[in-house]
């Protein structure tokens, strides 16, 4: 046991993922008896994860493999903390057969080199309380398909006596929902160093948001409150990440939960959606090939094949890899229809973009503040807001 190679590993959200690793580990040990995985203290959140890695980089005690939010990979790559996986991929015989969907692989690709392999993927979906929806005459077949529909549904629900018909998760980290509206029009939020909010699509996104908020008279809830309201049956509709399905199912009252595709700006539905979730990065500072090989073995194991399938089994996320979804988990999705919605949306999967440069996170915050201004009614003229945000963010990105 002494010459076991120890791979140090850090991941976020122990409450969500502990069980995943607990399921994976025995299988991994069976396959790699000479490797020992040492779990580091979990990250409290994606932000915490990135900050921890940055600190550890300065202090010189990085783990070998770390799980980072999809939009946090860029910063670690930029700062040269994450290692390129290309040498390892090259050494594998038939890497693609392991099921890596091109789109998914793209999420961790920077400048033509793969740095991160996705581990758990989420997409925005709609959650519906069917009992509430029924009050306004909705059933599983005619759920809103566009944001216009959503606003109408709100009006109807309100007429039906529902005070608080909808919640839209604008406040999810990393401007996820803004990017969702942008991708819905097939427009990236950043291209290179350019912030794209000043485009027409940008204005549409902002105005859509404003319509949703004002049309539904949406309360500015914190996510915990929103989740509580939805669980308590107050809300009819909630737009949120699919990853919360597990939490909602656990917490909800006596009503029928249905998840449905994320509405689009037009009736065709969204043209793309940003992927949420986390991916595995190799951050080992070791030069020992054996050590690196061990780290790679673990990294590969959890992001592909049987290991990856456990993500879906144990969380609300999708596994990163097509094979797992299509083959291994077919039965599972039949049993868990709420989790299937995201899988149906898989073809729409797009990058959750990070803003480049040192000020990337500051830019995220500026946009967050701007969006909040829409919810709280601080901003009324979207064109003005568009201009203001574009300017400020662009200033940060240059």
């Amino acid at each position, binding site marked *: 046991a002494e010459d076991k190679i120890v791979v140090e590993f850090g991941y976020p959200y122990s409450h969500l993922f502990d069980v995943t690793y607990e399921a994976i580990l025995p299988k991994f040990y069976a396959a790699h008896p000479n490797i020992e995985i040492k779990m580091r203290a979990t990250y409290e*959140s994606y*932000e915490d994860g990135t*900050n921890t890695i*940055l*600190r550890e*980089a*300065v202090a010189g005690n990085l783990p070998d493999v770390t799980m980072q939010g999809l939009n946090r990979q860029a*910063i*670690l790559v930029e*700062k040269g*903390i994450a290692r390129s996986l290309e040498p390892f991929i090259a050494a594998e015989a038939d890497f693609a057969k392991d099921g890596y969907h091109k789109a998914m692989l793209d999420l961790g690709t920077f400048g033509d080199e793969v740095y991160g392999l996705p581990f758990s993927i989420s997409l925005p979906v709609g959650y519906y309380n069917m009992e509430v929806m029924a009050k306004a005459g909705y059933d599983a077949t005619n759920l809103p398909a566009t944001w216009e529909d959503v606003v109408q549904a709100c009006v109807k629900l309100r007429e039906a006596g529902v*005070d*608080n018909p909808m919640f839209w998760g604008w*406040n999810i*980290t990393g401007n996820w929902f803004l990017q969702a509206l942008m991708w819905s029009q097939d427009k990236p939020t950043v291209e290179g160093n350019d912030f794209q909010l000043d485009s027409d699509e940008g204005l549409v996104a902002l105005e859509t948001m404003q319509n949703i908020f004002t049309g539904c008279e949406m*309360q*500015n*809830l*914190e996510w*915990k*409150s929103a989740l*509580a*309201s939805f669980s*308590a049956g*107050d809300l009819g509709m909630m737009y949120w990440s699919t990853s919360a399905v597990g939490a909602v199912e656990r917490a909800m009252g006596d009503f029928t939960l249905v998840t449905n595709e994320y509405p689009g700006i037009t009736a065709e539905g969204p043209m793309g959606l940003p992927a949420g979730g986390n991916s595995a990065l190799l951050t080992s500072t070791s030069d020992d090939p054996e050590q690196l090989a061990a780290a790679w073995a673990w990294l590969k194991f959890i992001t592909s094949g049987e290991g990856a399938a456990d993500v879906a089994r144990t969380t609300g996320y999708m596994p990163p890899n097509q094979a797992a979804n299509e083959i291994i988990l077919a039965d599972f999705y039949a049993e868990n229809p709420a989790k299937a919605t995201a899988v149906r949306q898989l073809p729409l999967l797009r990058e959750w973009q990070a803003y480049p440069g*040192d*000020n990337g*996170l*500051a830019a995220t*915050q500026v946009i*967050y*503040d701007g969006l*909040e*201004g829409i919810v*709280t009614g*601080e901003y009324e003229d979207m064109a003005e807001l568009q201009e203001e945000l574009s300017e400020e963010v662009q200033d940060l990105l240059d």
Partner: protein
Amino acid sequence: MQSRAHLWFIGPAMALMFIVLLIPILIAVGLSLTDYSLGNQGAEFVGLENYERIFTRSTYEKMFVATFRYVFVVVPLTVGLGLGAALLIHSLGRFGDLYKTIYFLPVMAALIAMAIVWEFAFHPTIGIINSTLEKGCGTFLEAWPWYAKGCERTFPLWLNDRDYAIWTVSFIGVWQGFGFNMVLYLAGLTSIPPQLYDAAEMDGATRGWDRFRLVTWPLLGPTTVFVVTISFIRSFQVFDMVEAFYPQGGGPSKSVFVMMFAIYEKGIQQNLMGIGAAITVVFLAFVMVLTVIQRWLVERRTHYV
């Protein structure tokens, strides 16, 4: 007279103070003149640019507003309630222990857990606060326009309403902090010689207030200096609660964007250590000025011996 004993006494404290507090703060001051970001190889000297930003961006104006609102609500209330509770409890023979423990509970509880509890309590619809308020609908309370509005539509969102957030957070700050001041005041009360109360009684200080003015308050002078100073500093340094409630953004419309949170957001969350350090320096300058003023006002009057 005391030979060199004092060197031994202040020596270790000074050494640790330098290593643990002053050197890091000097590093921070140095960083405030650069654009250092954690993980970067080096940093560029940017002069006072970081400071310029603090004083020109509207976000930072909100920062000052939030900080001052919080401080000037929380300090008087925690000191006042702390003193009040201490006096009441001190005047009781029995049961004093019980109240003491209860009032100290908020200080002892882990804040992140309590933040979650408060979030539940302040939940806009099903939270205990608003659901209790709703029970009052239809009664005479509706005569109060604010209340009537709440009944008609909804009661405030409290934590997520930009008009209420800072006050709600201040309320929780008071809830959390006054027990600590109470303990300090209780400690102060025990060192008042009881004969002085006897003397006051004989001098005709019949009302509790008279005894308080004549004996308790002046003799609590050193305690009060301490309590006020500490309350000031602690409320200027309020952070945990804001982070627990608003991990991102500092509250609705940045209405709870207090300085410590700004430091944390810039320096740690966003990795802009330069700006973070600059806010730190501004923060220190600020608190220092206030502390000097406050000490100048209070300390002068409390040296008797």
